[in-house]
């Protein structure tokens, strides 16, 4: 039994790392623009599907991955420019519906381009399972974990150490003040969307060999990423990462010990509980609301 639990933990952390990356993307966009982007999962899907298509066209893996990430980042930038910017100042409900529309639109584009079947992606370094004290683990899981650690630390360093990252944070604290000290808020917003889309795309490419990908793969991933961001306290990038890992582990334990069919329900029951009892998230700051 302890061995089994260890196995569930290993699986859970792998899945959680993917949720963490999606949640991190959510937090970036939320920080910069106060918009919850329901199309975040679609960035993940686009990254994976574009990489699969480019690989199929004969590009080597590394080039395909880089090109897919850049293309997806471009899509994120366009989304901000064409759909979010014209609706600035709109109500929360309006922006939620705009991003849901964008998600459905991107799904539609993907189903037209690549059909409705689930497509495979070759593992980066083979499928020989690694034995680790009673649990087995695919080499791809190590790629996912390593990639997640690298991306999270890079994002963290970018936000805290670089001038550009600090400018981005300034926009989230107070856009007017940021504008006044000479930060171009519009450009920063586009940067946030591009970065977030790129992050999503890399998460999608890392996970694709394990999960495969299809035009609708982004729906659940996006929702889980959103959940991760909320569990961690929305707008707190590192909270989103912790929330993602927690959610992944919980889901894997639930799937293993209770029933795999109910794993999505278990994840959302947990999210509802967090919302009901700790609405600012487990790792968020308490915020007093102004009238």
């Amino acid at each position, binding site marked *: 039994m302890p061995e089994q639990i260890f196995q569930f933990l290993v699986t859970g952390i792998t899945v959680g790392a993917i949720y963490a990356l999606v949640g991190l993307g959510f937090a970036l966009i939320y920080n910069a623009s106060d918009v919850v982007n329901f199309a975040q999962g679609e960035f993940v899907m686009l990254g994976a599907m574009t990489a699969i298509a480019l690989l199929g066209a004969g590009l080597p893996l590394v080039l395909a991955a880089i090109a897919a990430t850049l293309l997806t980042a471009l899509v994120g930038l366009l989304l901000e420019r064409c759909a979010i910017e014209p609706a600035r100042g709109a109500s929360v*409900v309006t922006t939620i519906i705009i991003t*849901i529309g964008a998600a459905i639109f991107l799904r539609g584009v993907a189903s037209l381009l690549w059909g409705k079947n689930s497509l495979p992606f070759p593992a980066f370094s083979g499928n020989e399972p690694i034995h680790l004290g009673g649990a087995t683990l695919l080499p791809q899981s190590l790629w996912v974990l390593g990639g997640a650690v690298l991306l999270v630390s890079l994002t963290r360093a970018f936000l805290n150490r670089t001038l550009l990252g600090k400018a981005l944070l300034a926009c989230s604290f107070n856009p007017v003040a940021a504008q006044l000290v000479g930060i171009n808020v519009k450009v920063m917003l586009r940067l946030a969307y591009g970065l977030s889309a790129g992050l999503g795309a890399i998460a999608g490419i890392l996970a694709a060999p394990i999960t495969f990908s299809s035009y609708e793969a982004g729906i659940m991933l996006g929702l889980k990423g959103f959940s991760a961001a909320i569990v961690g306290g929305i707008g707190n990038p590192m909270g989103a990462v912790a929330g993602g890992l927690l959610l992944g582990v919980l889901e894997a334990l639930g799937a293993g010990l209770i029933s795999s*069919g109910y794993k*999505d329900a278990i994840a959302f029951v947990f999210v509802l509980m967090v919302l009901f009892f700790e609405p600012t998230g487990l790792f968020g700051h308490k915020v007093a609301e102004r009238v």
Partner: protein
Amino acid sequence: MRLAGFFVFAVAVILLPILFPDNYFVTVVGIAAGLHVILAVGLNLLMGYAGQISLGHAAFFGMGGYASAILTTRWEWPGWLAMLAGLLVAGTIAWLLARPILRLRGHYLAMATLGFGVIIHVLMVQATEWTGGPDGLGNIPPLNLLGWTVDSDRQWYWVIAVAMLLVIGLSLNLVDSRIGRALRAVRSAELAAQMMGIDTARAKTQVFVVSALFAAFAGSLFAHQQAFVSPDSFSLMISVELVTMVVLGGMASTFGAACGAIALTLLHEGLVVFEDYEMLIHGALLMAVMIFLPQGLFVGLTQGVHRGWTWIASRRGAKEPHHPAVS
């Protein structure tokens, strides 16, 4: 005057099948549109008037549908009793959920309602011994009302038309009642409403329960009319479509929601030819309406007409010589 729109709508609904009997768009598409109108009008009470988003409304629709399906096929309950049971279940769950869930705002509320919808959907798929799992439940007997069995498309059209008019009438009255005014106050400024002595939590709970009841009512009718239910009819995408209907027509207008429901039903019917492009068009439409006409098609257009009219009137007034009032 207040109900003039209602009577015009009612006459149109009654005349359609008389003018075009056996027309596919009237009897078949009309039934679907009618059910959508019930759902959208109910959701609009919550979204448009109380200003609370729900991304899980298909769950209540499903509760009505599955209550009717399970009780009539497994226990052979009469249809009306099963329908009442469905209303009771959906109403109770909405009432229990309302306080904790409606305390949340904005994105948190969106996430919570969405999560609730996903949980109910997973239950429909997984609780196979009750719901039949992903394959659904079939052989639901036709609805029997006081000895009259509803089993042809024409008969269904009349049943759903009456149900729809009932829901629209109820909603119009509710909006103009004390509760309706309280809700609008909650929507424009919740704290100010509280200061005025409105029990905002109670007002929000009431409207949440009413909109869940409308959805469950539609679900029961849907189950009998289709004689079949499956989880696909109550998925997250359906919840999103219901929100689309409300938003497309225009929030905070009962006829706006009804028009949005009819427009989206017709659009789906029209897009069947372009099946592959349906998702793409649906998404683009949603974005375009929200960016360019955030009040929705119906409300936006009526306001446009009204503004145009007052502009013409003011121009005409300007040409006439000004008569100073006799003092």
